[in-house]
């Protein structure tokens, strides 16, 4: 429908280029999550603290399925149909949940543990004896 109603230049910009940018955006989001997984790997190697970097790298894989479904849908129409939307968004959601779990775990690892408060009995002991 859009092909018939838009001028060629409009179709090129608003449909073809937009679809390509949309797919590229999904891939960039995946690369971002993988990159932070690699940073977590380096952190684990250097500081010997378990970060679950393998999980962080695997978690965003659903975005690639989302991007693949986008490519498949956009090759034939402007918008994903209902079935395609359900599959793509479910993959995106699964990735979102897993990526958030990975990010929270990494945040927990890099956050310094709070020092326990000094015991109340410690203060009088340091006072000079009369």
């Amino acid at each position: 429908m859009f092909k018939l109603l838009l001028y060629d230049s409009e179709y090129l910009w608003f449909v073809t280029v937009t679809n390509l940018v949309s797919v590229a955006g999904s891939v960039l989001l995946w690369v971002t999550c993988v990159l932070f997984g690699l940073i977590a790997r380096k952190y684990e190697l250097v500081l010997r603290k378990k970060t679950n970097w393998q999980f962080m790298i695997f978690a965003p894989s659903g975005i690639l399925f989302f991007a693949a479904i986008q490519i498949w849908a956009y090759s034939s129409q402007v918008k994903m149909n209902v079935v395609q939307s359900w599959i793509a968004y479910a993959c995106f959601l699964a990735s979102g949940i897993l990526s958030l779990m990975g990010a929270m775990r990494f945040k927990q690892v890099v956050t310094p543990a709070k020092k326990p408060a000094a015991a109340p009995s410690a203060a009088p002991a340091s006072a000079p004896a009369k």
Partner: protein
Amino acid sequence: MEISIPAELVFAIAVALFCISLYYYGRVLKRLLAIIRRPSVIWTLPIAGSILLALGALFHFIPLAIYPQLDPSRTDQLMMICQNRTMESSFIFLAGLISILAGWTYTRWTSR
């Protein structure tokens, strides 16, 4: 054009989760920069990315109200859908790009 509101809600939740993930990555990056003693504001980039991602999602939802009563003879409706889709993809693309920039810069600083 047919749309499924529950599927769109799933998309909204997924985007929100990714926004929170990017926010956490920004906080992690802030801590990692403190560890390597390199004061920089690159940790704000993933957080800015999360805001852009949320804006992208906003442009995804604006044309949903038009799809059910889409009239092919009304070019203004078609153009609005097209413009919103362009804005959505641009914002998602920018969100990914600036978040990668932050991660890549940190990786470069910590690599020999």
